[in-house]
């Protein structure tokens, strides 16, 4: 089970202040309340790199600077990232998008100061989201960051908020 939280793949590098609306996902999907990952995965990073969805593979990792997914916390961008099977390692993420990442079951290390300087696009990475270990295999470095709390890892393991809630309701019944 623990292996589910070790991602090994390529680094996709972004700077500070990547916006949830416009950069990560066109706003019209939020206005239309689109929540299908099969639709949204084809539009991730549309505002920054239109080819992004066709270039990435499941297990790849987005490494970004401060305030990743900032702005009005629409969930569509995180649903798309979940649909692509990517992990997130960021210097910081505003609270609304952090909740959305957990609720969409995106593995994340949310508080990694300086990590944007520790990897470049295309580097081979291995990230253990349970332990908080970040390895840049291309550079031969390993850094320990604070991992997610166990309760949040459980939500991600369950497949996100809704499956977790269904389990909770079934347990209470």
């Amino acid at each position: 089970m623990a292996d589910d939280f070790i991602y090994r793949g390529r680094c996709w590098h972004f700077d500070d202040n990547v916006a949830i609306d416009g950069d990560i996902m066109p706003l019209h999907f939020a206005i239309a309340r689109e929540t299908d990952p099969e639709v949204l995965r084809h539009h991730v990073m549309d505002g920054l790199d239109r080819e992004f969805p066709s270039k990435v593979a499941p297990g790849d990792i987005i490494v970004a600077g401060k305030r990743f997914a900032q702005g009005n916390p629409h969930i569509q961008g995180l649903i798309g990232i979940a649909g692509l099977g990517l992990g997130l390692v960021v210097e910081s993420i505003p609270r609304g998008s952090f909740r959305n990442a957990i609720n969409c079951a995106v593995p994340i290390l949310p508080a990694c100061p300086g990590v944007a300087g520790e990897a470049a696009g295309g580097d081979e990475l291995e990230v253990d989201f349970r332990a908080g270990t970040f390895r840049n295999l291309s550079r031969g470095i390993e850094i320990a960051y604070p991992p997610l709390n166990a309760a949040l890892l459980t939500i991600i393991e369950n497949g996100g908020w809704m499956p977790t809630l269904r389990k909770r309701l079934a347990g209470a019944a």
Partner: protein
Amino acid sequence: MAQTAAEKILSRVLGADVAAGDIVFPEPELITVHDWYVVNFAAALDELGVEELFAPEKMVLVTDHEPTAVSPQAAERQKQVREIAARFGIDNHFDVGRGGHGHVFPVELGFVRPGMFVAGYDTHVPNYGAVGALGIAMLTEISEVLACGSAWLRVPETVRIELTGRMAPGISIRDVAQRLIADFDADQIDYTVVEFAGPALADIDLDARFTLCNTPIDLGAKSALVEPDDAVLAYLSDRVEGDLNPAYSDDDALFRWRGGYDVNLLEPQVAAPPRPDNVVGVSEVAGTAVHHGFVGSCASSLLSDIRDTAAILANRVIHPRVRLFVTPGTQEIWRRAADEGLLQTLVDAGAILTAPGCGPCAGGRVAPLASGEVSINTGTRNDPGRLGPNDADIYLASPLTVAASAVAGEIVDPRELLAGD
């Protein structure tokens, strides 16, 4: 263990000591849900097969975003809300004309106690920090709270801001609240509870504390609260049943940071488009022609806001180019404003009163802008499209500045009008 007020409140609710960063499942002691979100949660519960609420007695349903239904859909939605309240046994349903703004009237009616943990389906629920309660917005997960009693929460860090100095005449709390979120960096307050303390609070009454707690959320704070003082506790003691249990941070609690802030601003402050923290001194935007004004919203619809508006409008008329809407926050505020003769002053000046609640700020459902128009108002946000068309500009300011600008037909420093009184 030294704790912040927020840590104490959540520790009491959970029955165990918690510290910032912990992931917990605290049960809110009061849950507010607004307008059509009621319809949304009922649909979500239906999908989950949930037929009974965990604690219907803790719930308050309010109709404040669109109290005066202006579309057939809104009338249908209000009907559905009434049916949902009956079906789930929610007695505290404040229908149109019964309460008013859901971020204000629950305090007036004694639902909110100092030191209480409140969840609400609306971003501005931190308003309850005005009386020292911890109000936290729960959006998608509100249906989990309703079905199971709680949803996950990261215990927030606190930043403590000691307010010093005095506000000069013509400067009001809205100026301070706006300037303050512009002076701090989003990274400094993201995910935190912003706690206000300090000697300046002696001049900042309960009405003003709503305004103070309202703005930090728009810079990314999780909540805000003001340390309740004797005046606030005395106000509540007549309204709240049982003991008041205010929570105060220990002096040696672990804060993310603590700092001072001088409320003695040099001039009134205006948030220019397109964000609430894009704040400049009024002199930088003075002379901008306006077509629309509005005093109201959860930030600025208290009795003192109506008094400030009336002080400017007394014996004056609104500029022919301008339409000015005033939305008293609650039924009680409306009645008290009427008792003081304020409403007559507003109407005589040519202002239009709208039903207690959010007023135009709730997406411009009432009194929207037309393409290319300019509004100056006391709403919470000024994003393009907030009051209708994307190409209309919205400036946010204090009730004094809004009323003065409505008289002048352009943005002005209200001290120019107050000086002539």
